[in-house]
């Protein structure tokens, strides 16, 4: 069983002559390679740069949005307080007018 396997392996792995044009073919492939390599390396630089730019833009966008939300929130808060202040002031005015009209006019000394 193991002899048979060994024979099969020897047959399959026997040295084969690549032929005379093998070296020429390899050399032709190698000489064609630099262009591809350059294109690949250019792509390899461009992709991470674009990714980095996208991430920076996205982070900047989120930061800007958060800043604007914060400004809008603080402005809205100030407006709420101002609105409540004005409302209370006018309720105060109504209260004062009611009180002064329900009270008898203060007695004034003649000629005062």
């Amino acid at each position, binding site marked *: 069983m193991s002899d048979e396997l060994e024979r099969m392996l020897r047959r399959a792995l026997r040295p084969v002559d690549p032929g005379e044009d093998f070296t020429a073919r390899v050399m032709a492939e190698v000489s064609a390679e630099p262009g591809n390599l350059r294109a690949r390396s250019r*792509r390899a630089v461009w*992709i991470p740069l*674009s*990714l980095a*730019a*996208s*991430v920076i*833009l*996205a982070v*900047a*966008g*989120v930061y*800007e*949005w958060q800043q*604007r*939300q*914060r400004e*809008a*929130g*603080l402005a*809205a*808060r100030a*407006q*709420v*307080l*101002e*609105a*409540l*202040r*004005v*409302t*209370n*002031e*006018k*309720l*105060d*005015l*109504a*209260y004062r*007018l*009611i009180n*002064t*009209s329900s009270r008898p006019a203060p007695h004034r000394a003649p000629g005062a």
Partner: protein
Amino acid sequence: MAKTVAKLVAALFAAAVASLAAVAALPALAASPALATSPAVAAGPPPGQLVIAGLESLEPQAKDSVSISLDASLLATAARFLDSEQPEDREVKAIITGLQGVYVRSFTFDHAFVFPTGALESMQKQLHTACWQPIVSVHKGEERSRVDIFICQLQQKARGLAIIAVEPRELTIVNIVGAIDLDKLRRLQGHFGIPRLPEEK
């Protein structure tokens, strides 16, 4: 594979640029006349909301003017910036929670002024609809001051408050839309520059 990655990067880049452009466009959107005008334009104002219009002529004459328009979303934004840990902020938050809008127009003049007839008529017309009831109407001839307070009630629930205060050199219109609790409002007196009412004797 490389093409897919390139497409993905391009899409990401485009999305990032678009989001920046959208953020940049936000103030312009908020300032656009279509959104800055009354929310009543779309589907009519909710009960308790007045359309305050016709006061533009007062603005150039006024020494000072205050114009506040806070709809439900702006009130919610403001509420996020009120610190629940602070007692005063907590009370303001309690007041504005459940409100759908707060609108204030106030003008202070150096001289006597005339309430624009169109604005007055428009407001009177709105305040004569079913939900509005006058709760205070006080007129003091000597002080030439008048304050009218109306409340809008529907199904036993307060839906709005309107205050029209006319003083010799000041006109103020306040419209609070939603369930306003005057007791809570009163509790704010003495805080945030809100005047303190004298105690009832």
